[in-house]
C-alpha cells in the first residue's frame, strides 16, 4: 500500500463542487464518472447551442483560475465566430507557480471532469482539437489523463460525431519538459509549436492569433473543471456560491507554517483568517503569524494584520495583492523575510526566459543583491536599490514574469523594511532559526 497521501485533507467547511467526486473509489474511471452526472453537461450543452453556453459561462462569473482572473465566458466570446482557420483549445496544466498544487488532484482524481470541460469549451468556440499541456514533472498525471482520454474515445465522448450530436472533438495531452515560463499563455503556445517557451507580443491575443496562428482559447485546469457544473446547474447557482463578480469555489492550497497543510475547496470570498485558523488549524506549533503569501509566490505578501480579507480577486486587489493561483503560504514570526525574498528571487532568476531585458537583468541583479543582504554583506542602500530595480521591471516585460518577480520583492521590502536594515546593521542574519525541519 502506498504511503503517499491524498492532498485533499478535508474540512467540514468545504463546499465541494469540482472536488465532489474525489472520494469515490476508482474515481478516475468513466463508469464512476457517468454514474455521478458525468458527461450530462455535454449533452445539455449540445441542446443549448454554443452561444448560450458562452453566455451561461459568462454570467456565472467564472474567472480564470490560473491567476489572471479574467472572465472565462468573455475570453471565449473573443474567439471569432467565423474563421477560415481551425480553432484550438489549449488547457494549461503546466502548474508551476510556487505554492500551487491544486491541478494535481483535479487530474489525479477526476480526469473526466477536465475532459468534459475541454469538450464543452471546444463546442462553445467551434474548435475540434484540444491539447492539455501538462508540465513534464507531472508524468503520472499525464498517464492518468491519457487513460481517461482513451476511455472517452472508446465510449464516443471524443472523436467524430460525439454522442450523435454531429460535433467532432479530438483531445490529447502534450508534455512540457521543465519551464515555469510555459505556464504563461503565449509562451505555452510557442512551446506547443515546438519552440522555446518565449512569450509573444500581445495583441494579437491568443483568442484571435494563437497556436499555429489560429484562434485559441487557453484555460487553466481548474477553470475548465468548473464548466460542466455551470452548464448543468446554471450560471446563477455558480455565481451565487461566491461573492459579486467572483463566481464559484476555489481550490486553496495551504502550505508553509500551517497545522493542516492541504488542498481545500471553499467558496470564493472565504475569509483568509478563517482559512488559516479554522480550515488550516492555525499556525504550526502555535507560533505567531508574520506574513501570508495569498496566491502563489508572484503575489505581494500580506502581513498578519491584513488577513481580514475575503479571498476573491477583487478584495485582494483592493488591498494591493492578488488571489493568483490559490497557493496560500503561511509564514511564522521566526522566519527571516529577507531569506523568503531571496528564495523567491532565486526562483524567478532561474525561470526568467531571458527574452525581455528588464526581467533577465532585473531578476539576476535582485538575486545577487538579496544573496548579499542575507549573507550579511549588504550595503545601507541595498533595500532601496532592491525597490528601484523592482519598480523598473514592473510593466516593462512582454509577459507577467517580470512583474511576478518584482511584486513580492516590493511588498516584502516595504512591509518588512526593518529586517532588511537589521541585516545591514548587524552584518548577519538576525534569525538563528531559518529553516528548521519540523
Amino acid at each position: 500500500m502506498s504511503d503517499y497521501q491524498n492532498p485533499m485533507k478535508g474540512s467540514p467547511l468545504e463546499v465541494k463542487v469540482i472536488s465532489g467526486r474525489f472520494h469515490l473509489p476508482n474515481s478516475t474511471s468513466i463508469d464512476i464518472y457517468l454514474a455521478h452526472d458525468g458527461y450530462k453537461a455535454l449533452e445539455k450543452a449540445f441542446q443549448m447551442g454554443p452561444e448560450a453556453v458562452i453566455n451561461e459561462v459568462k454570467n456565472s462569473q467564472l474567472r480564470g483560475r490560473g491567476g489572471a482572473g479574467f472572465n472565462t465566458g468573455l475570453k471565449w466570446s473573443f474567439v471569432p465566430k467565423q474563421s477560415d482557420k481551425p480553432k484550438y483549445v489549449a488547457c494549461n496544466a503546466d502548474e508551476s507557480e510556487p505554492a500551487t498544487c491544486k491541478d494535481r488532484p483535479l487530474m489525479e482524481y477526476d480526469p473526466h471532469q477536465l475532459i468534459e470541460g475541454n469538450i464543452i469549451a471546444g463546442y462553445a468556440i467551434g474548435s475540434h482539437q484540444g491539447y492539455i499541456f501538462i508540465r513534464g514533472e507531472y508524468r503520472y498525471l499525464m498517464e492518468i489523463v491519457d487513460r481517461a482520454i482513451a476511455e472517452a474515445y472508446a465510449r464516443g465522448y471524443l472523436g467524430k460525431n460525439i454522442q450523435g450530436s454531429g460535433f467532432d472533438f479530438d483531445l490529447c495531452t502534450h508534455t512540457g519538459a521543465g519551464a515555469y515560463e510555459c505556464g504563461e499563455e503565449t509562451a505555452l503556445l510557442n512551446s506547443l509549436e515546438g519552440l522555446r517557451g518565449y512569450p509573444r507580443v500581445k495583441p494579437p491575443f491568443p483568442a484571435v492569433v494563437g497556436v499555429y496562428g489560429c484562434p485559441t482559447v487557453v484555460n487553466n485546469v481548474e477553470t475548465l473543471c468548473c464548466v460542466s457544473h455551470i452548464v448543468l446547474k446554471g450560471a446563477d447557482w455558480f455565481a451565487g456560491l461566491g461573492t459579486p463578480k467572483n463566481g464559484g469555489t476555489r481550490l486553496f492550497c495551504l502550505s508553509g507554517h500551517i497545522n493542516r497543510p492541504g488542498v481545500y475547496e471553499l467558496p470564493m470570498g472565504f475569509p483568509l483568517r478563517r482559512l488559516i485558523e479554522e480550515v488550516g488549524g492555525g499556525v504550526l506549533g502555535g507560533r505567531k503569524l508574520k506574513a501570508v503569501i495569498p496566491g502563489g509566490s508572484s503575489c505581494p505578501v500580506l502581513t498578519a494584520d491584513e488577513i481580514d480579507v475575503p479571498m476573491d480577486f477583487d478584495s485582494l486587489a483592493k488591498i494591493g495583492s492578488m488571489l493568483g493561483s490559490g497557493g496560500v503560504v503561511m509564514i511564522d514570526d521566526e522566519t527571516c523575510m529577507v531569506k523568503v525574498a531571496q528564495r523567491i528571487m532565486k526562483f524567478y532568476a532561474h525561470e526568467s526566459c531571458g527574452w525581455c531585458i528588464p526581467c533577465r537583468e532585473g531578476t539576476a541583479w535582485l538575486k545577487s543583491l538579496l544573496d548579499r543582504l542575507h549573507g550579511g554583506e549588504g550595503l545601507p542602500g541595498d533595500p532601496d536599490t532592491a525597490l528601484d530595480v523592482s519598480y523598473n521591471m514592473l510593466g516593462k516585460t512582454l509577459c507577467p514574469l517580470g512583474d511576478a518577480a518584482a511584486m513580492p520583492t516590493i511588498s516584502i521590502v516595504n512591509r518588512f523594511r526593518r529586517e532588511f536594515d537589521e541585516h545591514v546593521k548587524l552584518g548577519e542574519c538576525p534569525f538563528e532559526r531559518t529553516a528548521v525541519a519540523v
Partner: protein
Amino acid sequence: MLSEALQKRFDEVIGRYPLKRSAIVPLLLFAQDEIGYITDEAIQEIARRVEVRPIEVIEDIGYYSMLHRRPIGKYNFQVCTNVSCQLRGAEGILTHCSKRLGIGHKQTTPDGLFSLEEVECIGACCGAPAMQVNYDFYENLTPERVDRLIAELKKDGGSPLGTGDSARS
C-alpha cells in the same frame, strides 16, 4: 538505434499535431526516458522525423530544464527547495541527501545509481518538504524517510513511499 517501441511512439505523437515540430519536446523527453539522456543520434532522428534542422532541436534542449545531454543516475533525486518546502525544512533534506549520497547539485554517484538536483517548485507544496525521484513524488520527507527510500531503491528498485506505479495500484 532507437527501439521499435520508441519509434512507434514517435509516429503516434507526431500524428497528434498539424505541425510536426510540435512533437519535438515530447519526443526528446520520451527518448531520454528510454536512453537515459539525449544522444546525438536521438537529436538527428527527431530532427529528421519532424523535418527541422538538428540545431533547432538542440535549441530546445538548452531551454527545457528536464532535458539533459549527459547520462545521469538511474535514480534522479530532485529536491524542491522553493518557498513552501523551504519553510518546512527543505534545506535540511537537501543537505541530508547530499551527505548520504556523497554528491552535490547535478552530480552523479560513481556507480551511476544516484543523481542529485536542487529543483524549483514541483507542485507538492501541501506535502512539503518534497522531492521527485525520476517521475515519482515523495512527500512529507524527514531524514529517516530519505534513508529508507535510498535503502529501498538500492534493494528493490522502488519504494512504496511515493506515487510510483507500484504504489498507486
